[in-house]
């Protein structure tokens, strides 16, 4: 029995960053909007308060704020010839759930991708020649250029109160900022965070090697700050409980702090929590999504919410699942290369580290925010010559500390036993005298890395799990070895008592150790409906009233944390809807 509800102008699926941005912009344009959020109505003033907001076991280890794998997970295999098995316990990535989504428990690194990342395929072809890109590397250009997106990056940074320093202000290069970044029209809204001890050691070593460091752009507000919504962020306390935790200081930008309070006082907006969207009702003939069906997770009752406009703002996997189960677009097949849905699933080459130990230096790793790094960008993207290297892309290289929570942060030199007397001595000796140099590398599309529907395993609503076919490829392996060597070189320049070796992602991808919640692709944006799912305004080619948000639209993943680009694209898409689509509903790009 499905209860049919009264039609609304727009329905937003998932109320995290993109759902909140779209709901806010659409209601401002006069539309009535219903937000469907499968999780609880998490309110910082109630749910993120001292002292329990600092409960390491509950939040960081038992994963209180994340998607419940019992309800929904993905299955995984390395190659199309293998049988996928379900990810029974989340590990490698930790999607969010609940009001604010992962935006309430992220770390806050808020980047713009490089201008060359925006036009990756044409840039590499131009610089390295027509045959330089291997045929299995199915990278694409973003159909939106850096210059076009610049004002939207800028706006999202202001919404978040990002702390940082410009390195390229309207073309002028500035020491102390990231001089590799694209030209910015404006300085960051907040000054950089106070540098950590690890960061100051990094800065000195890099200077000795001839590299200019900068502070990683951080949505942890360095000062009390009021954003363009008129909403106020507090100043960061450097509490060391950031990623996986909510923020009691309201210093970490989140939809809950930066946008949602204005939606709660907006009569045109209605939030429905515990509303788990099950499927899209797709009219193939009309090329429209007519309605959204959801289940009230408290009662099991099913509802159908008709809407003129549907915004898909769930996580990467849910976006893919809802498109695939509704049959909006053709499923990608790696054997033929046909179909776009599920194509170009990418990840992040994360968790590459070199640990440095200093007998004579005190690090205080527990005094830190989640996005608190001292970086170089010399080995990122195409900022260095790839001639003869045998791979494309690069990595953010950074040092810093994010926490000293000892269940998970206890550096000891390699070769130390994992337990017993010797382990205890090493742990006590080095806990406050070590930190990591880390690298987050880009993930470029490969024709055999893709998403489709699992034939065997189902989620709590009875739908197939999304099946992930993914492995690290030759480009990835060469990239991390190259970056590992750079990190070791920087580490040695710090003159540590003990150092590494570089621990980089070698061998097969594993879903067990945490790496990164930067899953991307599957519903990618592009200029060609044959190889992409949404157009440059994130409008589905096969359903003109469906707009797909988030990193599932990335054709590949740059090295940078994705939220800055996700936020910018949401504002870009929202403007296309409110300025053009509403007045004249139909395809915004001719098919």
């Amino acid at each position, binding site marked *: 029995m499905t209860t049919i509800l009264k039609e609304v102008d727009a329905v937003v699926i998932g109320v995290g960053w993109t759902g909140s941005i779209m709901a806010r912009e659409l209601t401002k344009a006069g539309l009535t909007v219903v937000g469907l959020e499968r999780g609880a109505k998490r309110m910082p003033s109630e749910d993120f308060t*001292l*002292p*329990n907001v*600092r*409960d*390491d*076991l509950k939040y960081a*280890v*038992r994963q209180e704020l*994340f998607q*419940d*794998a*019992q309800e929904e*997970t993905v299955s995984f*295999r*390395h190659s199309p010839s*293998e*049988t996928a*098995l379900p*990810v*029974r*316990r*989340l*590990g490698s990535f930790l999607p969010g759930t609940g009001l604010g989504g992962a935006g309430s428990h992220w770390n806050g690194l808020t980047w713009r991708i490089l201008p060359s990342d925006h036009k990756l395929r044409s840039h590499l072809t131009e610089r390295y020649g027509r045959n330089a890109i291997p045929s299995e590397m199915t990278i694409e250009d973003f159909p939106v250029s850096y210059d076009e997106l610049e004002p939207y990056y800028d706006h999202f940074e202001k919404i978040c109160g990002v702390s940082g320093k410009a390195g390229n202000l309207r073309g002028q290069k500035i020491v102390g900022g990231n001089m590799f970044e694209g030209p910015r029209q404006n300085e960051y809204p907040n000054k950089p965070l*106070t540098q*950590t001890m690890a960061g*100051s050691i990094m800065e000195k070593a890099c200077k000795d090697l001839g590299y200019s460091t900068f502070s990683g752009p951080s949505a942890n507000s360095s000062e009390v700050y009021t954003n363009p919504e008129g909403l106020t962020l507090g*100043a*960061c*306390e*450097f*509490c*060391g*409980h950031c990623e996986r935790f909510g923020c009691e200081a309201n210093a970490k930008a989140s939809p809950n702090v930066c946008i949602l309070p204005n939606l709660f006082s907006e009569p045109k907006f209605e939030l429905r929590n515990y509303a788990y969207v099950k499927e899209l009702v797709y009219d193939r003939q009309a090329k429209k999504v007519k309605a959204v069906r959801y289940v009230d997770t408290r009662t099991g009752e099913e509802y159908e919410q008709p809407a003129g406009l549907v915004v898909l703002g769930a996580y990467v996997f849910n976006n893919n699942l809802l498109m695939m189960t509704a049959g909006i677009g053709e499923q990608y097949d790696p054997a033929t290369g046909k179909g776009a849905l599920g194509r170009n699933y990418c990840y992040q080459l994360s968790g590459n580290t070199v640990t440095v130990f200093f007998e004579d*230096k*005190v690090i*205080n790793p*527990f*005094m*830190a925010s989640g996005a608190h790094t001292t970086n170089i960008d010399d080995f990122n993207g195409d900022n260095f010559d790839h001639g003869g290297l045998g791979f494309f892309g690069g990595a953010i290289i950074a040092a810093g500390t994010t926490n*000293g929570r*000892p*269940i998970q942060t*206890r550096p000891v030199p390699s070769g130390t036993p994992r*337990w*017993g*007397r010797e382990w*205890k*001595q090493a*742990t*006590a000796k080095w*806990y*406050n005298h070590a930190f990591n140099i880390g690298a987050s590398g880009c993930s470029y599309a490969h024709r055999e890395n893709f998403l489709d529907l699992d034939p*065997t*395993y*189902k989620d709590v609503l009875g739908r197939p799990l999304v099946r992930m076919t993914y492995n690290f490829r030759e480009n990835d392996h060469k990239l991390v070895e190259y970056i590992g060597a750079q990190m070791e070189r920087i580490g040695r320049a710090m003159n540590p008592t003990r150092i590494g070796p570089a621990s980089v992602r070698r061998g*097969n991808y*594993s*879903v*067990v150790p945490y790496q990164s919640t930067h899953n991307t692709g599957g519903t990618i944006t592009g200029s060609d409906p044959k190889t992409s799912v949404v157009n440059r305004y994130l409008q589905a080619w096969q359903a003109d009233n469906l707009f797909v948000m988030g990193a599932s639209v990335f054709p590949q993943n740059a090295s940078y944390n994705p939220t800055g680009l996700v936020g910018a694209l949401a504002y870009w898409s929202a403007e296309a809807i409110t300025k053009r689509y509403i007045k004249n509903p139909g395809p915004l790009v001719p098919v």
Partner: protein
Amino acid sequence: MAEDPKIGRREFLTAAGAAAAVLAPAQLAEAQQAQPVTPSATAPVAAPAAPPADEPLLTLTATEHAFFAAAADTIIPADNLSPSGSDCGVANFIDRQLAGAYGTGARLYRQGPFPKGKPEQGYQLSLNPREFFRAGIASANEFTRKSWAKDFDRLNEEQRIAALQAMEAGKAEFKGFGSAMFFNALLQITMEGFFADPMYGGNRDMAAWKMVGYPGLPATYRHDIKKYLGKVYDKPPRSIADFS
């Protein structure tokens, strides 16, 4: 429980002739056959068993509790840095964790089928953590009985270290899953108990935090981050209970 605090939980049961009661029923028949020496009150005890638990158990059997306590004391031996793992409450922490949502499989996708996967596909057993540790401890004790004719918690320190090393290396014979997998789970939950906030039953007196110099709460360092740059933050740690 009418237990003499000087007599460990296991001694009480075995002395009462209840050795059978400490074995999981499924393992019982097998254990009785495979085990030439059943632990008894008269068996020589090379090392004292875990000190008596001062808290009642929620889910663990006496055998399981003794195993976790002995493992915690081997993984985290008492020295000048901290008391032993069990004296810090690690076994009680584990008892509470396995009795609660985590132990009964919260956040664990449990739909079948359950074929054996590749290691990179992660945990693929049908067991929840409570069931996993029940089965693993039975296997571990069976293994030590074969090698040393005693349950793990009755071994001396040297033997316990050797037994854990064998499990860590995947060289101990286990039923249903590898010993390395069991060891990794044991190590993880032991470290959780040692380092988690004391309100969960382990890390008594914040011993683990004192050992490494982790100050705990309230962790508001807006000014201290500059003041203590490169300097030891020498304030005593505080936990959630100190602010509740």
